[in-house]
């Protein structure tokens, strides 16, 4: 193994792999370190959805739109079937109060440039069988899609390696090599590695990598539990969320105050079906540290919620459950950029449930900023220095 690079990337999940790929494309010598394996954290315990509709209008949605442009060419670029598709998606609305919130949400998304509309129950039922009678409406966007997240993660990594990046799996970072206020490299279980720039792309584990350089990152692990069904004939025509998912996503504080256990668990429906036919049913959003286990309570709350909204699912069998922690940030936006007063320390973490969808654009932005010092869109809202680090 060589121990000198232009850039070190810490973290082999979808974000780190995408960053390594884009930097290698730009001719930079990259060494990526990963404590376990690719897709061993959130990138390997998520569903397949690439929702544009779940993104708040503004920077969040602008990033997702830019990312979906990049997704279009990825299969050829990575020379791998990442199962990317755009079939549209729906958000199911259960009450008049939710409808009001979603009307505002949709109006703001339209102004940011998303094709999205509110459709009535009848039309929603025409697009998806098995829906509950009590739904009042749904939102629909033809721009939502999906991808196989593990294939995407492995695809970025393999393409990076082909371009000369070195990927060290099962290589834990144990410390930073500092000189004054400057980062000079990292200490790992396999010895020191030197580079003038280190990218912290460790996802939910980013705060641990932050502490090693004295940073207090506001990222917290937030558990998501997901259920996997037996493969069945095409049933979920397009990805689906519930409006309560949107509420859970953007109102973490309100969840704690609720008396309902399902609400406290942050349960919101997410449904997608893989190419093989397995339906993925999510999910919870829980703050339980790094505990990735499934709980009886979580499993039951998710499935109860799912058949309440889509009763047609009731007769399908569950073969497996998943649990993983995603990197939550207080304002729902990732931290992307150099850290002030710590030369060479670059952040690229905190995407929570948007990591798969935003991985292509994040890799590009990070590579642009490191190579050119600027990128193609205004990303000042992602500046890590917006928090007291």
């Amino acid at each position: 193994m060589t121990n000198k690079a232009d850039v070190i990337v810490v973290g082999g999940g979808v974000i780190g792999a995408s960053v390594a790929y884009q930097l290698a494309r730009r001719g930079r010598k990259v060494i990526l370190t990963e404590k376990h394996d690719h897709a061993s954290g959130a990138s390997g315990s998520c569903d397949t959805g690439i929702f544009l509709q779940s993104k708040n209008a503004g920077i969040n949605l602008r990033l997702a739109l830019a990312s979906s442009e990049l997704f279009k060419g990825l299969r050829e670029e990575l020379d791998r079937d990442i199962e990317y598709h755009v079939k549209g998606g729906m958000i199911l609305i259960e009450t008049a109060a939710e409808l009001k919130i979603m009307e505002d949400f949709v109006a703001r998304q339209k102004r940011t440039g998303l094709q999205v509309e509110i459709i009535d129950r009848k039309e929603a039922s025409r697009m998806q069988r098995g829906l509950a009678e009590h739904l009042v409406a749904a939102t629909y966007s033809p721009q939502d899609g999906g991808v196989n997240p593990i294939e995407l993660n492995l695809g970025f990594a393999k393409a990076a390696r082909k371009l000369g990046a070195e990927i060290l799996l099962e290589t834990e970072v144990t410390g930073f090599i500092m000189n004054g206020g400057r980062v000079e490299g990292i200490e790992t279980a396999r010895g020191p590695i030197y580079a003038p720039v280190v990218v912290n792309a460790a996802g939910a584990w980013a705060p641990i990598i932050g502490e090693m350089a004295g940073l207090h990152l506001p990222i917290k692990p937030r558990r998501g539990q997901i259920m996997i069904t037996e493969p069945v004939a095409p049933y979920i025509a397009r990805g689906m969320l519930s409006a309560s998912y949107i509420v859970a996503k953007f109102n973490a504080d309100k969840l704690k105050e609720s008396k309902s256990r399902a609400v406290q668990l942050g349960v919101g429906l997410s449904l997608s079906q893989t190419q093989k036919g397995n339906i993925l049913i999510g999910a919870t959003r829980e703050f339980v540290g790094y505990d990735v286990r499934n709980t009886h309570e979580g499993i039951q709350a998710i499935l109860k919620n799912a058949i309440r909204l889509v009763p047609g699912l009731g007769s399908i069998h569950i073969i497996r459950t998943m649990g993983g922690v995603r990197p939550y940030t207080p304002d729902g936006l990732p931290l992307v950029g150099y850290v002030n007063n710590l030369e060479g320390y670059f952040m690229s973490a905190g995407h929570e449930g948007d990591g798969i969808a935003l991985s292509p654009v994040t890799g590009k932005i990070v590579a642009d900023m490191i190579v050119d010092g600027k990128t193609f869109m205004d990303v000042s809202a992602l500046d890590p220095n917006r928090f007291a680090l």
Partner: protein
Amino acid sequence: MAENDETVYICRCEEVSREEVEQAIRDGATTITGIKKRTNAGMGLCQGRTCRKLITNMLAGGQDPAKILPPTFRPPVRTVKISEIAEGDEE
């Protein structure tokens, strides 16, 4: 993967051949979970009950299989109908 009469399947549920598992090992997989992510072996109906042992031995490469990190076990133990879990312990 090229299939013929000689193809040896390690994971029958997901039809993963020995060749594919060997390729995953060359790609850096050192655990059963690593093989699973790269090939889908163990992700089918039986959830690795048959192939787990075969893959462990392949990963061990003649060494002590007990040194290979065991996979993550997750519920349910057997496939179960969604409506049965959802209505599970309602009073």
